[in-house]
């Protein structure tokens, strides 16, 4: 086969190119002041092998795309499409979806009873990321406003609890709404001036804002403790004294409940009048405004609600791990949450929940994987944009039932 040969040859060349490209940084290690040079040949061989596979897949995909394979998509993405269809079939079936929720609930409730403390901890952490990813999904996924400094709002929530507790002795239950409120205010503060910015400018301004917040937390040592952070933040009080493990479980349940609330809130928001307006905004700002949508209000609402949720998550984080420092709120943390939204599917609720759970839990259970975590997150963002921009489980269209229309099931019968 001529085409196959050409592709093979090209793939060999591409792999050679990558071996050459990555050779110095990947395969050579020097200790410059001792003049020792180590060459790791096995890495070059590994690179070659990996690249042959990758480049073949890559070229095969684009070859099929160009030559219009009848379905117009590769086997992988058609398998994915089948999966997401089944998923939607499952979740749209009322009985199934409520029983699915039931299973999720049961597992969530039972976990601390059967699992180890370690498992409770990592699941609580995963739930926190679900909250963050869903909160970011409001702005990025539903409204199409790329916010890059999301960790700043997370930090504001966490420090709100940490500092208010340290200086004024305020408890968790007072700080939870306060943390959300402060983060929402910060969101509004940032939202006002950036209303007219679009796309990449908005992304950069929010990134700059995120860095400013982190640097201030780092530099205002007298107030925030600088890079030492704030330590010994108390867990929320309960009706009685709790042992360390019990209070850990208590935090776990709080986070679990908060995640469930988040899922309900974001899902309802998406399917509401405001949510619809946000989606319109994502599609076409000028047309939205011409159709009577007040861009300013709607955008600010999205900003405030999204950042408010990061604030809640921040308070929960501070209460659970008892110690916060600026190092937990870097750009990489924002990028991580963003990659969850991208992987799950922008605007998709179930997709983002699944992606956040997988991306936080997988590195914990696959130890070998954890080292490569951020590497994979980065690669995932690139690959998702190229091969499946709608995400693993694309956002589902809401079902409406207009009075005059034949209902969904009757539709087929009438034809």
């Amino acid at each position, binding site marked *: 086969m001529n085409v196959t040969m050409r592709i093979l040859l090209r793939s060999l060349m591409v792999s050679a190119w990558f071996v050459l490209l990555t050779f110095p940084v990947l395969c050579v290690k020097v200790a410059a002041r001792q003049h020792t040079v180590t060459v790791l040949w096995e890495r070059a061989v590994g690179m070659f092998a990996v690249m042959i596979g990758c480049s073949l897949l890559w070229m095969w995909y684009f070859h099929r795309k160009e030559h219009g394979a009848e379905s117009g998509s590769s086997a992988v993405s058609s398998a994915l499409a089948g999966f997401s269809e089944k998923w939607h079939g499952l979740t749209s079936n009322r009985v199934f979806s409520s029983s699915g929720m039931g299973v999720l609930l049961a597992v969530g409730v039972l976990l601390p009873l059967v699992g180890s403390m370690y498992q409770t901890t990592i699941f609580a952490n995963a739930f926190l990321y679900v909250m963050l990813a869903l909160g970011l999904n409001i702005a990025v996924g539903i409204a199409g406003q790329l916010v890059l400094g999301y960790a700043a709002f997370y930090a504001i929530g966490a420090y709100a609890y940490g500092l208010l507790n340290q200086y004024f002795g305020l408890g968790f239950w007072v700080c939870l709404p306060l943390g959300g409120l402060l983060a929402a205010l910060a969101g509004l503060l940032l939202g006002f001036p950036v209303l007219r910015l679009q796309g*990449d400018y908005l992304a950069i301004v929010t990134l*700059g804002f995120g860095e400013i917040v982190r640097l201030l937390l780092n530099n205002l040592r007298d107030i925030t403790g600088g890079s030492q952070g704030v330590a010994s933040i108390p867990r929320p009080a309960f009706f009685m004294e709790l042992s360390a493990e019990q209070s850990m479980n208590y935090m776990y349940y709080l986070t679990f409940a908060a995640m469930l609330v988040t899922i309900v809130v974001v899902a309802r928001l998406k399917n509401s009048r405001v949510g619809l307006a946000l989606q319109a905004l994502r599609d076409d700002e000028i047309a939205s405004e011409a159709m009577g949508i007040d861009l300013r209000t709607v955008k600010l609402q999205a900003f405030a609600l999204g950042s408010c949720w990061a604030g809640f998550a921040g308070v929960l984080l501070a209460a659970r791990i008892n110690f916060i420092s600026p190092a937990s709120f870097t750009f990489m943390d924002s990028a991580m949450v963003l990659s969850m939204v991208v992987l799950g599917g922008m605007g998709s609720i179930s997709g983002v929940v699944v992606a956040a759970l997988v991306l936080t839990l997988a590195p914990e259970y696959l130890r070998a994987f954890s080292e490569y975590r951020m590497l994979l997150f980065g690669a995932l963002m690139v690959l998702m944009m190229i091969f499946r921009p709608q995400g693993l489980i694309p956002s589902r269209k809401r079902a409406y039932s207009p009075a005059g229309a034949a209902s969904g099931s009757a539709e087929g019968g009438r034809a």
Partner: protein
Amino acid sequence: MEFDFQYFLGIFFSGLTRGSIYALIALGYTMVYGIIGLINFAHGEIYMLGAFTALIVAGILGGIGLPWWGILVIAALVAMVWCSAYGYTVEKVAYKPLRGASRLAPLISAIGMSTFLQNYVQLAQTSNSVPFPRLIPRRFSFLQDMGNFMAPGDFIMLVTSLLIMVALALFIRYTKMGKAMRATAQNRKMAMLLGIDADRIISLTFIIGSALAALGGTLIAARTGQVGFAIGFLAGMKAFTAAVLGGIGSIPGAMLGGLVLGLAEGFTAGYFSSDYEDVLAFALLVLILIFRPAGLLGRAAIQKV
């Protein structure tokens, strides 16, 4: 307090030097933005790769008895070549398949690429910062004759980057390739109709921008004696600030923006507190984007590439 002119001059030149490096990196941002309207988020990582490549070359050459400037020149050249290849590859892999996709897609891809490259270097090399060989002598006699107003490392950085910038300006202004770049920046479709291969111009833009960033990385590494996998983010953000400050898409703007930012930072650190030089840069970035997105050179001077 008495005005210390010597101190002022020292700060002025160190700010200028710092600014010249920002300008070198900013050129890559501004050229790419001019041509394809993308904020190439991974550009800072290219700079970091440049520093690492130079470190490796300098490490290999360290033992064979070349003069210090020979090592520096070879390290810089190899870093520039390799980083051009990185820039070219990054464009082909992460951006080219996304032409015509939704406006957020390339930017997200760029963020992913940046994360990927940073962690790639961390895993392949080390997560600690590594010492860079001391290539630059501690004293230049002619500088000492001139009152020792600059350190040798600063002097090399400033002179090299200014020379390179002049060369780039001439290239863009007078060569056929440069003209094709300007044409593509103004109207890609029209340029293609006139027989300009837009893909080649885009690749060329990435190659030149990456080479400049690599040069910046090499010079900084040689000057500070430190290299780390995370240096790309901050340097990249500052260079981007410089590009925006000057008016993104404008080449003279990027040079001016870099110098202004470097001086502003230098004076903040010198007369106020070095804690706030980064805050200043980010605050500038945010404020300019909000209030004057056209940058310093204003609308009239926003001439893409």
